[in-house]
């Protein structure tokens, strides 16, 4: 029997320490009142956890995979292709996985009423996209590079440039929401959300790779971002194996 009181509450034995954030992370002020105080209870993976919704291409709208083509004109900013693969932890492609993305515009402003950052909105950019992975688990979408933006976490806090990713895998517990960062950003070291993942290797995996091979010459840069989701045959806490 695992001693749930002395373990990090949500990291499996096979996961490197710090490879997932703790819920209660004081440098990120908003976590203080929204993180559970009691130990999490291990949930066996029953049919309820091993299954999950599957979405078809009928869900997608034209240009859901091209955030630069959703309005009459071109958005401002550095055009780029973002591509990658969604794999499970055994290295198998996650096929037909719905990937939802959202981001700020090039000036660092979100098209959202709560965002009061004094930077311009771009009438040609909404910042939302959706794609479904192919048979190899691949996805790609075109967008512009989001700007950094200030937030209220601490004095002079700025979020590094990032794109939000939401993914569905083979089962509902494969669900992952994460953020893709860009190489060489000086704000990485200062950002509590990025650093809530305390394992440097795990942080590194959230930084996209600049991909000269996939750039569209004279048109757009390219970045590669690969994602690994929990598999469904994963039963680390199965009865008798504790």
């Amino acid at each position, binding site marked *: 029997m695992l001693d749930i009181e002395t373990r990090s509450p949500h990291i499996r034995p*096979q996961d*490197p320490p710090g*490879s*997932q*954030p*703790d*819920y209660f992370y004081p440098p*990120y002020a*908003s*976590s*203080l*009142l*929204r*993180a*559970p*105080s*009691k130990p999490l*209870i*291990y*949930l*066996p993976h*029953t*049919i*309820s*956890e091993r299954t*999950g*919704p*599957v*979405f*078809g*291409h009928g*869900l997608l709208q034209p240009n859901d995979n091209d955030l630069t083509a959703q309005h009459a004109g071109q958005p401002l900013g550095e055009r780029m292709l973002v591509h990658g693969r969604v*794999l499970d*932890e*055994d*290295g198998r492609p996650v096929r037909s996985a719905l990937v*939802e993305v*959202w981001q700020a515009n090039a000036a660092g402003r*979100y*098209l*959202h009423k709560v*965002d009061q950052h004094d930077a311009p909105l771009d009438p040609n950019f909404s910042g*939302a996209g*959706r794609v479904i992975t192919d048979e190899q688990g691949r996805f790609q979408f075109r967008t512009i590079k989001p700007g950094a933006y200030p937030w209220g976490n601490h004095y002079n806090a700025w979020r590094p440039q990032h794109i*939000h990713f*939401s993914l569905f895998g083979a089962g*509902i*517990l494969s669900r*992952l*929401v*994460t953020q893709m960062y860009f190489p060489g950003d000086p704000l990485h070291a200062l950002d509590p959300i990025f650093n*809530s*993942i305390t*394992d440097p290797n*795990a942080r590194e*995996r*959230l930084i996209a790779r600049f991909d000269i091979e996939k750039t569209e010459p004279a048109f757009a840069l390219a970045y590669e971002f690969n994602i*690994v*989701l*929990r598999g469904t045959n994963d039963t680390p806490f199965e009865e008798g194996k504790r």
Partner: protein
Amino acid sequence: MSQPLSGSQTVGPYFSIGLSPLCSEEVASGSQGEAIMVEGHLLDGDGLPVPDGFLEIWQADASGRYISEQPASSVAEAVGYGRIRTCPDGSFRFKTIKPGAVPYDADRMQAPHLVVLVFMRGLLRNLVTRLYFPDENANLTDPVLQLVPAERRSTLIAQPGSKPDTLHWDIVMRQQKENTKPETVFFAW
């Protein structure tokens, strides 16, 4: 070859930009069964409403089957899955049908339940909980509920609501003080 999992990050305050298209109050549109409305509040450690969170529901149909094989082309077709945003006052509501019992293992059944994922700004990784139904004898033998300390089980069981077909269920992220609403049980997976 085993690959390390990608790390989780918060959905932040602006998730609705990207995640609104899948939002719907209808979890089981068109599915036969006992119709229910679930209403409640998402509350933080000060007991204050969380206006910028969302829930995801995953459940079986009335006969205890998960519709996970057929790809859904629209939100209405994604029967058994729902994404529900909280309102500015921290409240949420969704319509569904009561699911049937589903197997736990070869010998045992689980009581009817919904799997509920919780996302919000401030939460660096989503949480997982379950909603069980009141006045359900199967709750007494449900193998997952048995893993929960007896004094905390009530946080997973919805209560009869204001109308006959309505259930009330609050989600409390954190209990800071004694004599306040108890913290909801969340699971590790």
